[in-house]
Each structure stands twice: as structure tokens, then as C-alpha cells.
């Protein structure tokens, strides 16, 4: 690949910064999408060796359909649609265990963030709707109050997902210990939140 002329911040010790030979191009599909991904994540998925250290260390790989290494492989093969529609990108919590293990220092969580947001923009079906609903409830609480109101988030999440009676015990235990405040804590300047969430591409 070409060395980046603009040296921007690269989370992860991204080797594209220090200059490396051109990575192998396998896929022909989705060229501009993949360019955008490299630009936005400031990391080079094409350097992936498929060593699978990332998937091996991922704490939630068992709940995922693919695991991080296979998502990287799909990108290398230019299989954009499959990279956008899988449970892996939704279950990923961004814990950075994978890129800590990656011999090529690829910022995998940034790739996951990009794919998740692209999947939403393109209206790709989400295999883990509960997780998306949870994120939406958190962000709508932040948009409204500037802070998270956990009781409301949990209640609205339950309504959205129709899981009223699942996990009831956890909620009751938290209420009994006063861990869920009844009233939200709010910021003084709600206008600031309106500004942040106005420019929304993927709204809460």
C-alpha cells in the first residue's frame, strides 16, 4: 500500500505508520467501501495474517458466529455484505483484548465500530437486535438528560425487547439495594446534547 501522506493518530501500533510493503489485494468488490474503512479506522486490515490470535483470546468468541479473525478475512476477500451482517460485530464489546494479541497490531475494535455503524446506515438486518436496542436506549437517555438514567434505560429496554419477565430478579435486587435511582441526574445545559445528537446519522 501507499504510505499515508497525512500521518494521523493510529490507535494501535499501526504498522502503516512506519511504512510497509504493499499488502496483498485479494478482493475486487467493494473497493471504495474498503478504502473508507481504512481511512476511518486508521488501521490496515489487509495486514492480517489470519493467525487467529484475536479470536483465540476474545472473551466472547463463543457467543459470536464468526469471531474477529473471520471478519477480517471477509474484508480481505472483499465480501462486504457478509462483513456487515453477522453477530460478531454486535457482540464485540471493544475490550481491546484482540488487538493486544495481534502480531500485526491491527486496531480490530475500530474495524468493528466502523462495520456496525455502516450496517446501521445501510439498513442491514441486525442479528442481535437486543444489543442494538440496548445501545439506543442508553443514547436516548444521554440525549435527553446528558447522563444515563439506568432505571429508565432498563425499563424501556424491557419494553422494546418484550422481555418483561426475564431477568426480573436482577432488577429487583438492584432496586432493593437502591442501585437504580428513581429520578434522572440531568445536566444544566441540555442544548449541548441537542447539538451533539442533531448531526445524527445513526440516531438513538
Amino acid at each position, binding site marked *: 500500500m501507499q504510505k499515508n501522506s497525512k500521518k494521523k493518530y493510529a490507535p494501535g501500533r499501526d504498522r502503516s505508520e512506519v511504512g510497509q510493503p504493499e499488502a496483498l489485494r485479494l478482493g475486487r468488490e467493494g473497493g471504495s467501501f474498503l478504502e473508507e474503512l481504512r481511512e476511518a479506522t486508521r488501521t490496515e486490515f489487509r495486514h492480517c495474517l489470519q493467525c487467529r490470535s484475536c479470536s483465540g483470546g476474545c472473551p466472547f468468541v463463543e457467543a459470536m458466529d464468526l469471531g474477529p479473525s473471520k471478519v477480517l478475512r471477509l474484508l480481505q476477500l472483499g465480501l462486504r455484505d457478509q462483513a456487515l451482517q453477522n453477530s460478531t460485530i454486535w457482540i464485540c464489546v471493544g475490550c481491546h483484548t484482540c488487538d493486544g494479541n495481534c502480531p500485526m497490531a491491527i486496531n480490530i475494535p475500530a474495524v468493528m465500530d466502523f462495520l456496525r455503524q455502516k450496517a446501521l446506515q445501510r439498513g442491514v438486518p441486525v442479528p442481535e437486535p437486543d444489543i442494538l436496542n440496548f445501545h439506543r436506549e442508553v443514547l436516548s437517555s444521554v440525549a435527553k438528560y446528558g447522563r444515563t438514567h439506568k432505571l429508565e434505560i432498563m425499563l424501556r429496554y424491557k419494553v422494546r425487547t418484550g422481555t418483561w419477565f426475564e431477568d426480573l430478579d436482577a432488577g429487583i435486587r438492584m432496586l432493593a439495594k*437502591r*442501585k437504580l*435511582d428513581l429520578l434522572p441526574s440531568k445536566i444544566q445545559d441540555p442544548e449541548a446534547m441537542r447539538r451533539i445528537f442533531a448531526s445524527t446519522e445513526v440516531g438513538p
Partner: protein
Amino acid sequence: MTREPSYQELAFFPGCTLATSAKENYQSLVTFCEQVGYRLSELPDWNCCGSSSAHSIHGEAALQLPARNLALAPKRGTLLVACPSCYLRLRQTQTLLLRDPELSSRFQSTWGVSPPHELEILPFLSFLSSLDLHSFFSEAGKALHGLRCAPYYGCMLARPAAMPVSRPMGQVMEKVLSRLGADSCRWGHATKCCGTFLAAAKPDIVTPRINAMMDEAVRAGAECIVTACSMCHFSLELRATRTPRIPVFHFSELLSLAAAREPQNWFKRHLVDPVPLLRSKGLLS
């Protein structure tokens, strides 16, 4: 407790979890800091840093929510951040603003101030490891004598490797606990991820992992787990289903217990009551 003649003020970012479900973490942190001579002054009108949800589905909010906090923060000096997740969001945003002039000028026009490039954003454990705790230790003595702990740092303080903290915190929990007479177990999960939002959204995924962690802690001889992150604390307390469940402490609770040596009213807020353990060890009357 001998006190400093005067307190030093320290800007402080609590974050949503400490302000709500982990108030016991907040209170014990404030208490401990006062005991070692610091008075925390909460960042005025701080907002949520975006947590996992912003970077998951809303890139703009993931940038702007921490950015507003940075705009409210002091230009230089230190900002103490209690929650490792908030710390990571704030630090990442500060780093981005420093390296990207375009973002930096957008920041300026949105918030009317320049980004606080010289502000030192510090997680609590780094702050702690840079303090001179001499008088604290001599006052506290072996206040935690015989308590066998599994120190749990979680994933946020160690990663990503590209963003090292400004003051090293290497094994600070182990060091401080041992000075206070407690034992730290070696176990394999000290920097593993607790599941964060999955603990709320997908308990079926998180519960087996949390149980496996607690099993390992018990196997290593621990009577309790000590957390550096209130989100980890939440996941462990709420999602452990093995029997028996061992108590989970916020590290700050043990610090302020060591200094005060009296029952702390925040122990009432635990889902697994830690008082019987402390009594059986003679650490509480």
C-alpha cells in the same frame, strides 16, 4: 488520622456509574482522598462520556460527548477520573484532538475554547501509585490483616497498548493491599473483560464468564474480589450465579475502610453482603 494542614484541590470526573449505581465507590473515593489530603472538586455540569454505546453505534456522539467534558475541564493540571471506561474515552478524545488539527479547530468552533492539550487525565490507580502514602500506611497499620483478595483491574486500564498512562500503576492494588496486611492471590483473570454492556443486555453470554472468573478466584484462594472499575463491580455482583458468591469490593472501599476502621454505611448497597467476611476476619467489630 494525621491530616495535611490544608487540602489540595483536585478536579474530578465521576461519570454516570459512580454518580448512580456505584455511589459507594464515589463516597469511599472521596473519603479516601480527603484522608490523604486531597479534596475532589467535581467537574461542573459534566456529561456522560458515551460509554460503550456511543462508540458502538454513533461515532459523532463518541467524539463529542467526551469533547464537551474536555471543554469544561481545566486547561492544565490534573483531572482525576474514577471510572476506567470514562478515562479511556476522555484520553482517546484528547489524543485525537492533539493529533488532528482539523478536529481540533472543530472543537474550538463548537465549544468556544481550545482543547486542553496540557491537561493530565489520570485514572485513580495511577494517581494512587504516585502518592506518598507513608503516613496513610502508618496510621492504617495492618487494617486488612489476613484478607485474601483477588485484585481485578479489568480490561480498560491496560489497553490499548498504544496509549500508555502518564504515570505507571503497575500492580498498585497488590502493593497497597500487602502493605495493609491483605494477601493478593495470583489468578488468571486480573485484566480480563467483564462484559460491559453485555452484562445488562445479554446476561446469558456474560453469566458463564463471570462464574468462571469467580471460580478461578476461589480456586486461587481468594475470599473476595477487589475491582478497580465500577462497571466490572456491577457485572461481577449482578451476574455471578455460582454458590457461594464471594463479596466484591471497590478498591476504594477497602482503602477508606483501612483508614477509618469503622463500619461503612455503603456496604449496605452490596448485592453480596461483605460484612460477614470482614467480621469473621476481625476487620470489623
